């Protein structure tokens, strides 16, 4: 057992536990907080895989910004307390059955057919260096220049969209 493996196992337990906590919390705010913890754990997984930038992006964007939005939405709707009654009684058993099928299916596929065979780089081989971030930046700003620039247009459009939908024009009736 390498230290990395031990670390992974501990974190895996935390990740699964927080995910379950998110699912089973009656209070939506608690669910959101469990999700934050889950995001942070996943960020540490990224670190273990040798991808510090993704880890940091995960924390700033997901655990930070997206969660703030989640909390606002929860509070906006006043939906932090779920009613005790289950609206869809068949949902739970059906979901359980489907989950088991999915788990069996994916296990089968992973063990028989879909094992990556050479075409995929093993993680951590060349990326796990101090210059990781720099190498990523060089790729992002050279080969992936077009997606990068289009992303800024996308952010602009999103900004215009949200303002159009939320702000009233001056003089418009409510």
């Amino acid at each position, binding site marked *: 057992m390498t230290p990395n493996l031990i670390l992974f196992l501990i974190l895996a337990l935390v990740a699964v536990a927080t995910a379950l906590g998110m699912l089973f919390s009656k209070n939506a705010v608690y669910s959101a907080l469990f999700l934050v913890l889950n995001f942070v754990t996943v960020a540490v997984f990224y670190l273990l895989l040798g991808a510090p930038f993704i880890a940091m992006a995960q924390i700033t964007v997901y655990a930070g910004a997206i969660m703030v939005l989640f909390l606002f939405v929860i509070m906006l709707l006043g939906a932090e307390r779920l009613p005790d009654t289950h609206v869809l009684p068949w949902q739970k058993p059906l979901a359980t059955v489907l989950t088991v099928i999915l788990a069996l299916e994916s296990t089968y596929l992973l063990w028989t057919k879909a094992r990556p065979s050479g075409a995929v780089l093993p993680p951590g081989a060349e990326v796990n260096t101090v210059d990781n971030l720099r190498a990523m930046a060089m790729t992002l700003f050279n080969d992936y*220049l077009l997606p990068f620039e289009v992303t800024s247009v996308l952010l602009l459009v999103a900004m215009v*969209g949200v303002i159009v939908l939320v702000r009233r024009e001056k003089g418009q009736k409510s």
Partner: protein
Amino acid sequence: MNLTSQDYQVLAPYILLTAWACVLLLVDLFIPKERKSVTALLAALGLAVTLGVTLSQVGIEQVGFFNMAALDGFSTFVNALLLVSGILGIALAHGYVKRMGIERGEYYTLLLFSVSGMMLMAQATDLIIVFIALELLSIPLYVLAAFARPQLSSEEAGMKYFLLGAFATGFVVYGTALVFGATGTTSLAGIVAAAASPSTSTLLLTIGAALVLVGFGFKVAAVPFHMWTPDVYQGAPTAVTAFMASGAKIAGFAALLRVFATAFPALAVDMTAVLWALAALTMIVGNVIAISQTDIKRMLAYSSIAHAGYILMAFVPYGNPAVRDVSIAAGLFYLVAYAFTNFGAWGVVIALEKKEEKGLAIADYAGLGRKHPLLAAAMTVFMLSLVGLPPTLGLVGKVYLFRAVIAGGFTGLAIIGVLTSLISAYYYLRVVVTMYMKEGEPETVRETWLSLTTALTAIVTVVFSLLPQSLFEWASTAVLKLF
């Protein structure tokens, strides 16, 4: 590290239109509220200039931006069609938004951004760009669908479209991830190369391609991914619906064509049956449910679903090199036919629509033939074209399509196509019968741009059907450049 002028040439239309939209967004801030026609005019001008650039690029073939985007006959053809759709969309919207009291400058800017996203999608040769372009075209459409807020139906349309659209994008991204997992690349050329190597997992690749197909199935409203379409088309402002029905369909099919024809030819064996079923199901469900509609917007929404099925037919033989080119060219031709007919039909709907969603029942069309003979004649042309009866573009489109599909050996599918067209005659001609045979006092709006658009699309629908050869040849050359 530098870009050459070649790179800029590849994306010249996209760059021009995006820059125009950005500047227009700022210019619009200084245009007073009662002068928003200026914004509309500037937006249309931007589309027209871009159309000029696009047409000057006919015959040029290049790739650029590190093989992420391509300029070829296919993209030029689709770009031209998209830009024309954008102009028609603005012409229809201009008077409509004013009349409905929802006029804001952002309407036109968002429409420009959406068109630019659609064009990028037609040019994308990398799944990452396909994804970003998909978002760039969709986000403005979500906002436009909800543009008539706080009117409830419009808000509902925006919300539904957004949720299901986000879901669809999720499918595309998940599929892209699996394709990347199987091949180690997102570039379409790279995927073909990797698929040829025996070490690549075909299973992962197939699942990935299937998920991408599901995502695009949502976007083009193919059955069983069509649930959102009637509500969104009905609830969104009619001018938005007109643009959405044509633009999103053209762009979605363009991306689907390029991705499947260039990246996944190896999967044709598995995919043909799936595409066959999708096409057949879409034609049947769309046409059958349309029969019982009494609201014209809802009826046209189901008609739009049905036409997605006809266009999907063009994909079915994509793995057969002998008929592939002809059938994809037929698909492109059909998109042109559908776009013009669709804008025309929605134009007539806009002419009859009144505030608070009145004047939208098919029964409201009674007496139109007597009171406004020209408008009724135009509507008759569009209905005939949607059925596929002479003398319209719709007929020629269907002839090309069925011929190509039969040549590919899918006679059964062609028969389903003919039968469902017969079914569709019932509900399309019912509109014609209502207009001419029933008594009523329909009120219409007279707006210069609206009348011009309706007249123009009606003329195109008829005249092009009399000389379809040149258009089909352009479509064929466009496709040939794809391979």
